[in-house]
């Protein structure tokens, strides 16, 4: 093992960028766990729809290709994030309806949810691999609309010997704006209060007059929305997407949620950023091919030594 101090800068910055993405996706896992105490293993597919929907609607239908600038760029970017968020939020709500609610109404065992979730995830993912509907990706990778110039001609600045391009900056800024909005939503609004109530004590929440079904749908939508934003950011960052794009970011985000304390929203944000920093930090000393090994080693380590994660399992701030 020989460490290369020159890699510290790139590792930190890449870690922050990817960590922001993991954190955004982790919010969905953690919120659903918070209210239902179930791990929505189909959230990777929910995330993927954020990338697929924007690729299809903005790229294929509206034919957006090539970098935009000025006000147009701002509007286009907002459209990307909103469409990705709404599409994934919708998919998450649909998923709750077909894969979870029927089980909930029958008081099914916890394991049934898990199996149903994994089934739904595989179903959605392999549907994206087909090509009989226009929004499906087919077997190969697809080019994602490159609305921000990421090449030499575009906006960029240098930080710790790393070139920070527009898409990279966008990921971090958008993620932190999302964190702020969600934190306010959970801790300052009555919707947030009902989500926290259901998470802390479902019986008491019912006795306070909280409409449980509505709160669960809201939770799936909000968690899905931020997963969809992450999907659109993923496409913008990497420039191409494939049908199985949700798989690795999905399980990393799940790991991040466990690391931060599953069910805890601030924990998910922290866990995502930390996981990004840890896996990229490892490249300073060991080869990048070990990145995923390092990331997934976190899962058993946390479960053995600190099962409730860094911040514990409470949902609010």
């Amino acid at each position: 093992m020989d460490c290369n101090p020159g890699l510290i800068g790139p590792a930190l910055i890449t870690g922050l960028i990817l960590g922001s993405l993991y954190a955004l996706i982790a919010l969905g896992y953690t919120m659903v766990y918070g209210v239902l105490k179930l791990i929505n293993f189909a959230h990777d597919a929910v995330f993927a729809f954020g990338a697929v929907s924007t690729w299809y609607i903005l790229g294929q239908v509206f034919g957006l290709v090539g970098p935009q600038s000025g006000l147009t760029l701002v509007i286009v970017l907002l459209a990307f994030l909103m469409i990705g968020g709404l599409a994934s939020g919708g998919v998450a709500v649909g998923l709750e309806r077909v894969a979870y609610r029927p089980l909930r109404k029958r008081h099914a065992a916890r394991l049934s949810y898990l199996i149903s979730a994994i089934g739904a995830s595989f179903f959605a993912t392999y549907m994206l691999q087909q090509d009989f509907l226009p929004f499906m990706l087919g077997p190969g990778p697809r080019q994602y609309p490159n609305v921000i110039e990421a090449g030499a001609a575009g906006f960029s600045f240098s930080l710790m010997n790393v070139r920070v391009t527009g898409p990279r900056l966008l990921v971090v800024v958008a993620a932190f704006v999302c964190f702020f909005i969600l934190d306010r939503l959970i801790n300052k609004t009555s919707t947030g209060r009902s989500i926290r109530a259901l998470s802390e004590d479902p019986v008491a929440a019912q006795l306070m007059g909280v409409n449980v079904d509505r709160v669960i749908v809201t939770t799936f939508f909000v968690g899905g929305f931020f997963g969809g934003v992450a999907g659109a950011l993923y496409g913008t960052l990497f420039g191409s997407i494939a049908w199985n794009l949700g798989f690795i970011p999905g399980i990393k985000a799940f790991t991040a949620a466990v690391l931060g304390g599953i069910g805890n929203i601030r924990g998910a944000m922290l866990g995502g950023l930390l996981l990004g920093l840890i896996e990229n930090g490892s490249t300073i000393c060991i080869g990048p091919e070990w990145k995923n090994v390092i990331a997934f080693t976190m899962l058993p380590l946390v479960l053995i030594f600190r099962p409730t994660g860094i911040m514990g399992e409470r949902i609010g701030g």
Partner: protein
Amino acid sequence: MAEPLLELRDVHVRYGVIEAVRGISLTVAEGEVVTLIGGNGAGKTTTLRAISMVHGPSQGQIFFRGEEITSLRSDQVVARGIIQVPEGRHIFPNMSVAENLSMGAFQRRKAPRKEISEEIDRVFTLFPILKERSKQAGGTLSGGEQQMLAIGRALMAKPKLLMLDEPSMGLAPQVVETVFEVIHTINSEGIPVLLIEQNAQMALNSARRGYVIETGEIVLEDEAKTLLGNERVRKAYLGEE
């Protein structure tokens, strides 16, 4: 007799194959304190949960102000003004005392802020200790304080019927007295109370009428004073030989 405020007609409740409540009928009239006493596992909590539609009846009907509520959701029951203080208090542990209280007014969240804060002040007058603790997390309160918070939280919903499930359980005698005093105060303001208790002495002393429930069925019903003198009640629930 005028139409009762709450009426249960032959209510059965099942948990899977087990029938925990087997055909209970009872009424609560305007302004009354009615108590339902019985031992552990007799079906008292199950009855209250059925009324609140947390776990609804498998058979039978429940009426509130003449309207059948048997097929409503729990939040719709709360909207009718049927408010329950559950067994074990069920305080939101990570929410502050103030937040717990405002959760009580969850369905009135569109009401003017001033109205809600007046309501909170009223609860603080009933339970001054809650004011001192208002920023503290609910989970850090003592059992007695949590019970006061649970009752205060229920009052925030402006109940038309208040149902209390074992409010004295696990509390020191002095605290029990405070809790019962408050129940009197609440009732004297015109709020009818359905009180579930294992402490039959306290319950029958504060109620006008009482029901005795055993293994999911009502075995006795009468004026509270009469029940206090009933030999079976004295033996089974008042600890007399």
